[in-house]
């Protein structure tokens, strides 16, 4: 209720602003009334550095894909006052625009979609560190049209990284930060287009940290980029870009509240001492270079055809520790924590150890080495020290190619026609690979969980019956090995009609998607449906959207759009346990989405306002959750179907020039994202073919977690005519919920408990996280060096910038949390939720030289 009032306040502010504008003289009025609202980074480039903010993009914070999807990049923000606030200020709490999942927004580079076919995410890490050459962006917001794609309902951006679009200059930069890397060097050189029609651009950057913000985290990244353009005649432009960003980073892990209380909010359970050095067990690694070839063909003055082909290959992986008949190596194993024990003396001893002893609260590498070197064994003809612990990487080798062509054509005075077709192919090879035997000589590829089923059956625990009892060493794959092959074809068309007062559009897309799993191992538990190709899953989908913009005058726009579409499910929500077998969900459905948005935009010289309301329904979503279950003593898969959700809310962005050099920015996102259906869950065990149970999940009315449902910001920005600027922003987040564990919303979970009792509430109530606030600042100064300092007799600029976030050093920000999936109904506190904390004060200071 309070929130509604707040939103109403914003609304009235918006209308008050309109009234204000109306009364002002129309001197500054934009001349044309048919301007569309697409904002581009071309505009941004004309501004000084303040608009580009820190050159450290938020992307860099997450090499792992998908985590900061909503804030695709600061650089996508454009000048839409709401979108820029969402991108610049809301990232800390993993704010997702409209609460949408990451697969509902997309990114194109040079005319091809970069999104992964396997999960719909944009793999930002693939071009991390290349901000200098990826600045030129178009963005479509919400359900609006774009000139390059049908577009996702969460927005789609298109990056133009072609050589001729890069400003002719050389830029050398250095940044120092206390975030996930300490140092960044970058260099970019672009030639501009020559008389012969050639243009080249090169960029490289290096980012690293021996230790990032959190203890034990590290960063080691290189990025490279090369682009060449050749203009042929007046009408053809051929472009080639290749880039890559091989990166390794030691990660921060999540932990339970008890551990944070004992160690502090900076606690990172992922590392441990090894001979005087901090070693992180969880290293994310990626190296997936991309090549894109683009043909830009100007057919005539009113038509343009852009065709592009891309190819990408490489792998990404994340390491961890595997173990076989040995103690859990994680310090967070529940039996290692003081709370597991009743005895006061034992509790006190453990508490003291947790407060002071890194050998207890961090990974004890020495113990792992000791275990591996303790005994020599002969196994399958091999004699040596048999490792009980190994460091492994679960990795995905990807091969991906895309073909895309888009025609943009103007027909008459009022009609713009756009049509496109695309074909995408992606093959992921997933497996586990040993990267360190930790002092041992070999490891044996057996499934220790399956061994419990029948001690006398030697074939059950085999990961691969085609190669049983395999002795494996560094570099070998083990555990599981399967391919996912996905193909997608799509065709779309869009008509935009522009008249004096009203613009209309309608867009339609048809697509077909198919995928299948191909097992490369014959699993001992599932000899009949683990090896070879599974049945191909096929889906046909449509998407339709239409809308209008009513242009009251050159400043006031009203618009409304609706969309209806279906989406093919992603493979990991279809295969219940793709690691070991082909089994799928029993009922496989397309997801259905219906969305409507309406809003008002004010685009005046001194004030910009955008106010939007939206309502989006999701039907028939599916999900598969996998975790270790205490009762079954096994990896358990929950296949959930029939997930319906409604996301509704309002967005407000205001940017007002209160003084010639002083701007006030405000943004508010108030949404309600709820589950609206009872879901169905089937439970299967990785080590058993039968369905263990079928449950109804009473998820209705629970909140969708993982993003604040409310986010507000208010900021002041001063831009001096003497080439410096400073801005400060206050942000406030509320209505943040932990993502629910569906198991806790079943009849079985509360069986035997009195309705309304404390235990009953404890299991059923959704965890609400504390509201949070942050203060961020940004300052920049750009200096044109005197002639005597000029390089190559060119104008030479030296630019400084400082971006600092969370100035109040709020160390209790939980960016996201989930109820732990492992759940013990008898002892519901045994597996509390895990989460981590965001950075306290963090900054990045940079200096760059341009000539």
């Amino acid at each position, binding site marked *: 209720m309070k929130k509604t009032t707040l939103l109403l306040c914003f609304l009235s502010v918006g209308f008050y602003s309109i009234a204000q504008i109306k009364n002002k003289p129309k001197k500054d009025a934009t001349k044309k009334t048919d301007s569309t609202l697409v904002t581009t980074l071309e505009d941004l480039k004309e501004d000084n550095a303040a608009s580009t903010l820190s050159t450290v993009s938020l992307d860099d914070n997450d090499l792992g894909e998908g985590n900061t999807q909503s804030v695709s990049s600061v650089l996508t923000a454009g000048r839409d006052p709401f979108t820029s606030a969402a991108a610049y200020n809301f990232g800390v709490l993993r704010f997702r625009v409209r609460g949408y999942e990451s697969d509902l927004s997309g990114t194109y580079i040079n005319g091809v979609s970069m999104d992964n076919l396997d999960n719909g995410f944009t793999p930002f890490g693939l071009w991390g560190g290349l901000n200098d050459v990826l600045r030129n962006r178009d963005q479509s917001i919400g359900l609006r049209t774009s000139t390059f794609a049908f577009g996702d309902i969460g927005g789609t951006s298109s990056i133009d990284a072609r050589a001729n679009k890069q400003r002719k200059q*050389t830029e050398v930069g250095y940044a120092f930060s206390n975030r996930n890397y300490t140092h960044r060097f970058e260099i970019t050189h672009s030639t501009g287009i*020559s008389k012969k029609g050639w243009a080249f651009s090169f960029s490289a950057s290096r980012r690293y940290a021996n230790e990032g913000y959190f203890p034990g985290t590290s960063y080691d990244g*290189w990025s490279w980029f090369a682009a060449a353009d050749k203009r042929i005649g007046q009408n053809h432009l051929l472009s080639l870009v290749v880039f890559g960003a091989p990166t390794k980073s030691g990660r921060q892990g999540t932990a339970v509240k008890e551990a944070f209380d004992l160690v502090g909010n900076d606690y990172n359970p992922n590392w441990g001492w090894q001979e005087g050095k901090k070693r992180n067990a969880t290293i994310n690694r990626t190296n997936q270079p991309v090549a894109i070839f683009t043909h830009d063909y100007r057919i005539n003055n009113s038509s343009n055809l852009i065709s592009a082909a891309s190819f990408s290959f490489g792998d990404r992986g994340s390491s961890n520790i595997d173990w076989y008949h040995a103690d859990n190596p994680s310090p967070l194993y529940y039996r290692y924590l003081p709370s597991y024990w009743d005895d006061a003396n034992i509790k006190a001893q453990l508490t003291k150890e947790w407060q002071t002893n890194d050998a207890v609260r961090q990974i004890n590498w020495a*113990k792992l080495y000791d275990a591996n070197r303790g005994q020599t064994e002969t196994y399958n003809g091999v004699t040596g020290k048999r490792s009980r612990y190994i460091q492994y990487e679960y990795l995905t080798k990807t091969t991906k190619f895309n073909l895309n062509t888009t025609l943009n054509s103007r027909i008459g005075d009022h009609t713009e026609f756009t049509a496109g077709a695309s074909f995408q192919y992606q093959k992921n090879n997933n497996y586990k690979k040993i990267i360190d035997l930790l002092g041992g000589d070999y490891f044996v590829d057996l499934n220790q969980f399956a061994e419990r089923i029948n001690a006398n059956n030697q074939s059950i625990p085999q990961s691969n019956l085609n190669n049983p009892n395999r002795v494996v060493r560094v570099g070998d794959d083990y555990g599981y090995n399967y391919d996912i092959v996905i193909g997608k074809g799509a065709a779309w068309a869009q008509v935009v009609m522009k008249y004096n007062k009203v613009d209309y559009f309608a867009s339609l897309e048809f697509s077909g998607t198919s995928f299948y799993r191909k097992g490369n191992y014959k699993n001992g538990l599932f000899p009949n449906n683990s090896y070879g190709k599974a049945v191909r899953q096929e889906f046909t989908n449509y998407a339709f959207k239409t809308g209008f913009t009513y242009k009251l005058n050159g400043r006031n726009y009203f618009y409304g759009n609706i969309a209806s579409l279906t989406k093919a499910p992603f493979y990991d929500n279809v295969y219940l346990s793709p690691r070991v077998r082909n089994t799928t969900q029993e009922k496989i459905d397309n997801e259905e989405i219906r969305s409507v948005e309406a809003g008002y935009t004010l685009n005046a010289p001194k004030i910009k306002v955008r106010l939007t309301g939206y309502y989006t329904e999701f039907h028939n979503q599916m999900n598969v959750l996998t975790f270790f279950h205490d009762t079954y003593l096994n990896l358990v898969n929950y296949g959930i179907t029939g997930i319906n959700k409604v996301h509704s809310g309002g967005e407000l962005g205001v940017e007002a020039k209160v003084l010639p050099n002083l701007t006030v920015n405000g943004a508010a996102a108030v949404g309600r994202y709820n589950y609206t259906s009872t879901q169905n869950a089937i439970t299967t065990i990785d080590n058993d073919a039968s369905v263990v149970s079928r449950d109804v999940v009473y998820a209705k009315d629970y909140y969708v977690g993982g993003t604040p449902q409310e986010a507000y910001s208010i900021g002041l920005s001063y831009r001096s005519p003497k080439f410096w600027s400073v801005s400060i922003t206050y942000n406030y987040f509320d209505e943040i919920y932990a993502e629910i564990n569906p198991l806790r919303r079943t009849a079985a979970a509360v069986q035997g408990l009195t309705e309304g009792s404390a235990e009953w509430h404890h299991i059923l109530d959704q965890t609400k996280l504390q509201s949070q606030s942050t203060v961020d600042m940004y300052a920049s100064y750009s200096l044109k060096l005197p002639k005597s300092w000029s390089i190559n007799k060119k104008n030479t600029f030296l630019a400084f910038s400082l971006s600092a976030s969370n100035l109040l050093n709020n160390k209790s920000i939980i960016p996201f949390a989930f109820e732990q999936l492992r759940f013990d109904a008898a002892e519901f506190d045994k597996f509390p939720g895990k989460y981590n904390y965001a950075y306290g004060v963090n900054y990045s200071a940079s200096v760059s030289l341009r000539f």
Partner: protein
Amino acid sequence: MNIKSLFRLSILAISFATISTSCKKNYQAPPEAADPNITANTTIKALKARHTVSGAFDIINDDAIITGVVIASDKSGNFYKEMYIRDATGAIAVELAGTLYTNYPVGKRVFIKCKGLCLSDYHNLIQLGIKSVSNGIPTLESVPTPLIPNYVVGGSLGNDASPKSVIAADLNTPSGSTTMQNPLLGDLIKLDGYEFLIGDTKRSYGDTSAYKSTLGGQINIKSCDGSGPFIVMTSGYADFAAKAPEAGNGSIAAIYTVYNSTKQLIIRDTTDVKFSGARCFLFEEDFQAYPTTGTAPLAITGWKNIQESGDVPFTIASFGSSVFPKISAFSSAVLATTNITSWLISPGISIPTGISPKYTYTCANRYTSGTLKALVSIDYAGSATPSTATWTELNTIQANSSAFTAFLPYGPYDLTPYAGKKIYLAFKYEVAAGTSKSAAATYEPDDMKISKN
């Protein structure tokens, strides 16, 4: 791009690469296992002697340090949260949580800083652990995994952990000692010339049912000279729990434990059992391994249960802890008109030459009309009419008792004449047609043995 700019670019690239120093991490492996600089100041025997009252919790408040070599750990799962160490004076169970064999494999020397730990006993078996009070009830707990390094320091690998050879009498509590202080308790011992009871060889080591008995499976060993039986205890969680024990005779190594006053042996894994030699007897059958059948016929692989005339089969019954074949014509539907002739015939048994084997068995009987003959044949070929083979009668029991007799011993019967031949042993049950049901004899033959001499 002209040459000059290319040149400048390469200069920049080189300087860029130079400043971007690599930070590749190389981790040095931790040092190999070696004895720490710790000296024990007391012995295991002296430490155990501090625990005098069974069931008491004796917290160690001084800086007592013991050292010992691990003689049993939890590798096979037969021990859980427990390992055994010994020095020259004795051995003790050390209660530690988590997986132990990985960091405390057999042969590893360990040093235990006992201050803060607690001595207690599990039904007379002394254990070193940590005292825990839960809901007011004290127990001796395994030391929580994160605390183990505070008490236990690992040393060198590959120390002598061979079993101590003993004889049955050594297991008894020495005079002047208490059961609890018996110095052999907790130690790794070896007995020679033992074998599992014949019935136990047909069972598995442990209880592998879904509801694993926490006490584990119990099977028994004995020696040819009659020592034993001793219980060999196995946890249902041991990885060999489902295995059948080796049926021969030989040596067994095990941790010697006690439950109140009952001696129990716990093997570390099946390699501790080296029963590959010939058993004490040429042939034994005690029927202990088979479930009782009620009125259904006995069905044992290799054995024949034949109703040559009439409708009375041998069944399997039990009395007390004893299991045996049983036959009675009481429930026959045809007794009034038909002679009852039923056979229980053993599988073929090869009699070697050069020895003088003797056959014994036991039998209980009741009621008055009928006979049970013990027979031997060398030409029985599996026929459903055994009478057609040649049988030599060894003994006939004429039932004549209103109450069940004890299991009376019969024999020995000399089988020397059958040296070098394969024989079949049979029990033949006969009751004449027209005998009243209530008079029809019941027989319970058991414990068939052929000795070597």
